[in-house]
């Protein structure tokens, strides 16, 4: 087990390096640069600025210096766009916000999604099943960029219960709508995966055997069926969690939470190379980490898998 984890962590190093080089090249191949603007800068001014940020160095040297800075000092550089902030500061400010509402939304999505899926599977073809499937399809077809304005219309404009945006240090009133808007479509997906996976398990031989032994429905579900039925759900949850805590661009923009998703999009539009790289590496690391966690969970749940 320990050996497996160490091996995976070591494999992460070349993966991240490739990610850095690839993103760096891709980014620099996009037209325009951080300092191209509506009022073109006089060449001597542009030269001064590019020299300040070492953008006039050859690309391989830039990549090398960048990697060295990251590895030796954990320094992701200054933002090109925001003059008084470094990439570390931008991530330190935005990531906790997204992490907070993303984690809550994740818990909500998992709990509600699993409950819906299990209810539907155990009562297949009954009204409960249709009801649960109906809800999950409804939630699926309402993407968050539609959900967000609808929620604001209802809760802010009509009812006046909740503020229409902002974060305010993470007070609960500011979190309700982002959590609902972010969790619904994931909840729907989890419900559908849970339902079909549990149905398959419930029709398998070992459950029939358990029934024949005269075990109670409750015991069958909790002791035998649920664990294997969770496997597809768990493999879905790993990457989903990363998406929820980093990539909720629509939520960040619409509710102006100040989260990392907004910083990511702005950095791409502004060609703020250093911020874009920093967040890309963050997402890369999280993806690797949670894939590892999913693999460990798999081994723990599924006796067929040995690490």
């Amino acid at each position, binding site marked *: 087990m320990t050996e497996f984890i160490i091996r995976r962590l070591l494999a992460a190093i070349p993966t991240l390096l490739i990610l850095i080089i690839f993103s760096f090249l891709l980014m620099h191949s*996009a*037209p*325009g*640069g951080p*300092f*191209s*603007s*509506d*009022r*073109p*800068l*006089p060449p*001597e*001014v542009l030269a*001064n*600025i590019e*020299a*300040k940020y070492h953008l006039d160095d050859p690309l391989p040297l830039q990549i090398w210096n960048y990697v060295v800075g990251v590895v030796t000092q954990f320094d992701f550089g*200054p933002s090109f*766009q*925001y*003059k*008084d*902030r470094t990439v570390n500061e*931008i991530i330190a*400010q*935005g990531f906790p916000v997204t992490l907070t509402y993303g984690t809550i939304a994740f818990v909500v999505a998992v709990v509600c999604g699993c409950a819906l899926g299990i209810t539907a599977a155990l009562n297949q073809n009954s009204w409960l099943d249709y009801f649960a499937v109906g809800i999950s399809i409804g939630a699926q077809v309402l993407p968050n960029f539609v959900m967000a*304005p609808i929620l*604001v*219309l209802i809760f*802010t*404009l009509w009812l*006046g219960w909740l*503020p*229409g*945006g*902002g*974060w305010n240090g993470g007070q609960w009133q500011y979190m309700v709508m982002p959590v609902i808007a972010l969790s619904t479509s994931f909840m729907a997906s989890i419900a559908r995966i849970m339902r079909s996976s549990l149905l398959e398990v419930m029709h398998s031989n070992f459950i029939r055997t358990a029934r024949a032994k005269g075990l109670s429905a409750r015991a069958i579900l909790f002791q035998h069926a649920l664990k294997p039925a969770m496997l597809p759900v768990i493999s879905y949850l790993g990457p989903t969690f990363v998406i929820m805590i980093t990539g909720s661009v629509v939520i*960040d*923009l*619409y509710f*102006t*939470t*100040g*989260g990392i998703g*907004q*910083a990511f999009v*702005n950095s791409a*539009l*502004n*060609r703020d190379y250093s911020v874009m790289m920093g967040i890309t590496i963050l997402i890369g690391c999280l993806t690797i980490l949670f894939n590892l966690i999913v693999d460990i969970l798999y081994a723990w749940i599924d006796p067929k898998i040995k690490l």
Partner: protein
Amino acid sequence: MTSKRALALSSVFSISLLASPLIADVHPVTNEELADEQVFTYRVGDEFASIDPQLAEDVQGGEFIRDLFEGLMNQDSDGNLVPGVATHFEANADNTVYTFQLRDNAKWSDGKPVTAHDFEYSWKRLADPNTASPYSWFAKEMGLVNVKAVMAGDMDPSELGVKALDDHTLEVRLENSMGHFPLMTTSEPTFPSPKWAIDAHGSDWTKPENIVSNGAYVLTEHVPQERSVRERNPLYWNNQNTILERVEALVISDDNGALTRYLAGELDRTEVPTGQYNALSKEHPDEAVSFPRLCAYYYFINMTENTHPSLLDPRVREALYLTVDRDVITNAILQGGEFPAYTFTPDATANFVSPNNPARDMTQADRDARASALLAEAGFGGDEIELDLLYNTSEAHKKIAIIVSQMWKQKLGITTVLQNMEWKTFLEARSNQEFDIGRAGWCGPYNLASSFLDLMSSTHVYNDAGFSNDEIDELLDDAKTKADPSENFTRIEEVLATEFPIIPIYHYAGVFMMNDKLRNWPVGNVEQKWYSRELYFAAD
């Protein structure tokens, strides 16, 4: 609630005790009763990139800097010059040397006096290549002695034509005569910066915990991408006349989302989304406002060798110019009180006399007929011409591009291929002349026709579509040294109306929803240089 009631009770108590009205409750000039809460919350579409006076280049940053810092001169609600840190100035006979007298009661927020040395430092800092300011071009625009050599790194910044003669006297020397120079001191890059704070904190000096500023407000909170708060500065020399206690800017990128939050009462001011002004002004007549701005929306024509050959013929360019039905665009698409544009310079520009423009006085039917005749005269059939129209991503730009291409198709038979690009890609394509016709918008950096017409100079960085006219270049050069150059500007517009390097479409209006209790918004200031210290909320 209870605290308000307690406050009301205590004020009743104090009135009965002192038997005099509470002076703080009415406006000193208008005598209007003031609201208890003086907090102004407004929406910004984007996070500011910097509030360092010498580094900031965006509109949002400028709004902050005018509250946090104060330059030599300010603007009043109509855009006229009024004293700022300087009480007055003198110019020599040919307007090449200006001497500003600074007030002796101006203070920084840490208690230090504001001196002429602070201005000398900040202007040198603007031009210094080590500062690497994206706005340093403004120093060149100011025409200070030796500015070009300093910016190129060939000369030490100490050689720049600005010098503190003593703590309260600043001498500015210019390379050429410039009558409008004092106007430039209302622009943010010329505002003072505190050398000691910059030396102590480096680029972190603009953070709330480090910032030292000399304006009516201080920055107390900044949550990037969410909100920023500025609060009254008790050390500001004119603090007793400041009424707003607190100004909050919320970053909301979506126009419609911002409008919803305005309607829910979370904001006191927001932009009206394109096309919604009519409906909103019917529902909220006291809140929807529209006023002229110093900005032009126009198409410019590629006149380099990369262009469609037909566009090198001025008759074809005039035909395109004539067939754009501007009334349809302003009345049916934008609907926010924008002004159809036939000249580049907006009519609202100070001292600008619009030339007699035959096209403006024609009916659209006459314009269309003349356009068809011109095209035929030039020897082109409309169906032989296919033009690439380049614009950057935006719902409004798209609508306008579609309707203009439809007008050209219907009236001239010319086919237009719409090229929509993301902003930075658009800029790249524009500077490489990969288009036939491109979209542009321009806001004059100061209220003079030259702030628009300079773009028509063959050497201006913004003129990258190959237009060059000797007469215009001469008129612009001549205008720089004239006491009243308005004739030159009128003449330039006349030349543009024979050459048609650009197709002006409309002049902007500022279209906002504003709290109906908010007073003193400078709607007459076409540059929209507003200062929070002049605003206030009237009581219900």
